[in-house]
């Protein structure tokens, strides 16, 4: 009886373009750079391709969600912390930037970086108590903060209370706005991809696998987790800071749960652990959700269906699947 099985092998060009040998020829070079170039050029072209300013605005929002999704993916797949804190980061970054802009008179391009760093510091401090723990605590705590902060702001009438902070300066013009957020996505996407392969990234992945072994190697897991949470919350706060300058308003809706949930959905669809997948996932999910705007809250039903379908049929995500198809080929072999 002849039996066959499907064999999966790396493509020759993948093997040839590993390491320094990639410089051998244009073919190998382009094999490596093409996917990245397509992504970069595609994203740079997007603002031009959009039919009107409404859709251009959507692009900016997509990029902000992409930053959140990157932050989620980074924490979940390289540190093992499931963060539901998108709304927390957005809220802290957003309010800080809005206040700095309106009360201190800082221009957006000063307020945004300051709010990013300060906000990331504040978020890290808030989350510090649950960093030595393993398990669901981090997820629960990150989920509670935005809910609590929204109520505190409402009840104590802080920062304009339910009206929010009005009169926030916008970006000089829509092009600056879009290319700024696109540049930020590039910076953090390629930055985190680089980071996870450095020594620090190795430690972070080790913390995910076995934190006791990391402790036994003489490293403080709280310290390393704090660094990673700082980076991730910086991405979230940056996203929030940009958001208030796009909407020219900061309010309690910054703490909306959407900011926590959508990035997770995008990561599942795009492929977790790739740090590109989440960005792609946002580019799929957010525009679809805009197209479905007229259905109102029924959008959520659609979301859930897409999410379910992906989890059931392709839980690896688009990017992991794509990478495999790009790097490997399959053939039937006799056993």
């Amino acid at each position, binding site marked *: 009886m002849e*039996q066959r*099985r*499907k*064999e*999966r*092998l790396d493509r020759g060009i993948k093997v040839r373009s590993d390491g320094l040998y990639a410089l051998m020829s244009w073919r190998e070079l382009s094999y490596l750079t093409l996917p990245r170039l397509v992504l970069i050029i595609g994203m740079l072209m997007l603002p031009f391709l959009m039919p009107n300013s409404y859709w251009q605005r959507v692009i900016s929002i997509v990029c902000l969600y992409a930053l959140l999704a990157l932050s989620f993916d980074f924490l979940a797949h390289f540190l093992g912390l499931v963060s539901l804190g998108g709304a927390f980061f957005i809220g802290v970054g957003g309010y800080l930037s809005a206040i700095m802009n309106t009360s201190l008179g800082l221009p957006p391009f000063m307020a945004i970086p300051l709010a990013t760093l300060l906000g990331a510091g504040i978020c890290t401090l808030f989350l510090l108590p649950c960093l030595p723990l393993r398990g669901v605590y981090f997820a629960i705590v990150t989920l509670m903060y935005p809910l609590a902060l929204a109520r505190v702001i409402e009840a104590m009438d802080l920062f304009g209370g339910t009206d929010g902070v009005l009169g926030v300066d916008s970006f000089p013009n829509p092009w600056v706005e879009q290319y700024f957020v696109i540049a930020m996505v590039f910076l953090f996407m390629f930055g985190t991809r680089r980071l996870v392969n450095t020594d620090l990234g190795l430690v972070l992945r080790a913390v995910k696998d076995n934190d006791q072994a990391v402790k036994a190697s003489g490293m403080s897991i709280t310290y390393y987790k704090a660094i990673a949470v700082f980076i991730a919350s910086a991405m979230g706060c940056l996203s929030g800071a940009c958001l208030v300058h796009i909407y020219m308003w900061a309010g309690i809706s910054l703490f909306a749960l959407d900011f926590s949930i959508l990035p997770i959905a995008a990561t599942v669809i795009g492929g977790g652990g790739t740090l590109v997948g989440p960005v792609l996932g946002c580019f799929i999910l957010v525009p679809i959700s805009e197209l479905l705007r007229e259905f109102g809250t029924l959008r959520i039903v659609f979301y859930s269906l897409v999410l379910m379908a992906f989890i059931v049929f*392709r*839980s*690896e*995500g688009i990017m*992991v*699947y794509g990478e*495999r198809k790009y790097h490997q080929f399959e053939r039937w072999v006799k*056993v």
Partner: protein
Amino acid sequence: MLKATDLMVFYENMLALNNISITCADKQIIGVFGANSAGKSTLMYTLSGIMDDIQKKEGMAGGERITVLGRIQYLERDITDLKPSIRAKRGMVLCPERRRIFNESSVMENLRIGGYLATKKQSKETLDYIFELFPPLQKLKKRIGGFLSGGEQQMLAIGRALMAQPKLLLLDEPLMGLSPLIQSILVRATRKIRDKRGISIIVTEQYARPVLPIVDYAYILENGAAVLEGPHDEILNNPDVRSAYFGVSEE
């Protein structure tokens, strides 16, 4: 009782099991010996059907592709395509490597979970039997599984497997990391289980010396292939085996 023919398992392109055929008659103890990476655990997973589950999960997550070829016959019926839960229902129960007891449940709860498939009468009778077989467990009934010592955990794991009313018990490295004293207790218990309850047992181990005395027939695996097989005496007197798996050098 069990007859597996031409089992082949690939992890992606790596051959983990190469054309292995294993038979186990009624009330026999079969030993499978081999070093690390010989394919012992893969064999146990394949026989018990857990491989099916691993394969499915890896496939969904886009991980390694696992190919399983060959047929498994159990009690005169082909069970190759059956789910692990059905195989367990038919009496083929795996006591997994590294014990895998339920860490957060107490000893009693662990045993009761194991007895999910048994009737009330059966589980009461088996419980008494387990406490008779492993007296130390008697005093630990209320203790949380995760805080037991290695030896106690292994007794608990075997007890839990017995609660499922097996006809064929698969013991994957039951002696791993245990002291010689505990090892001999477990080996004696294994023989008792076969003698008193008529359960067939397949046991894997790296170091053959403690287990070989009780096995009726043994297979030696190397790099996924069965390099040697034979009844107890034949294996015991084979000079290669003596040096490789007994630590006896024949100078």
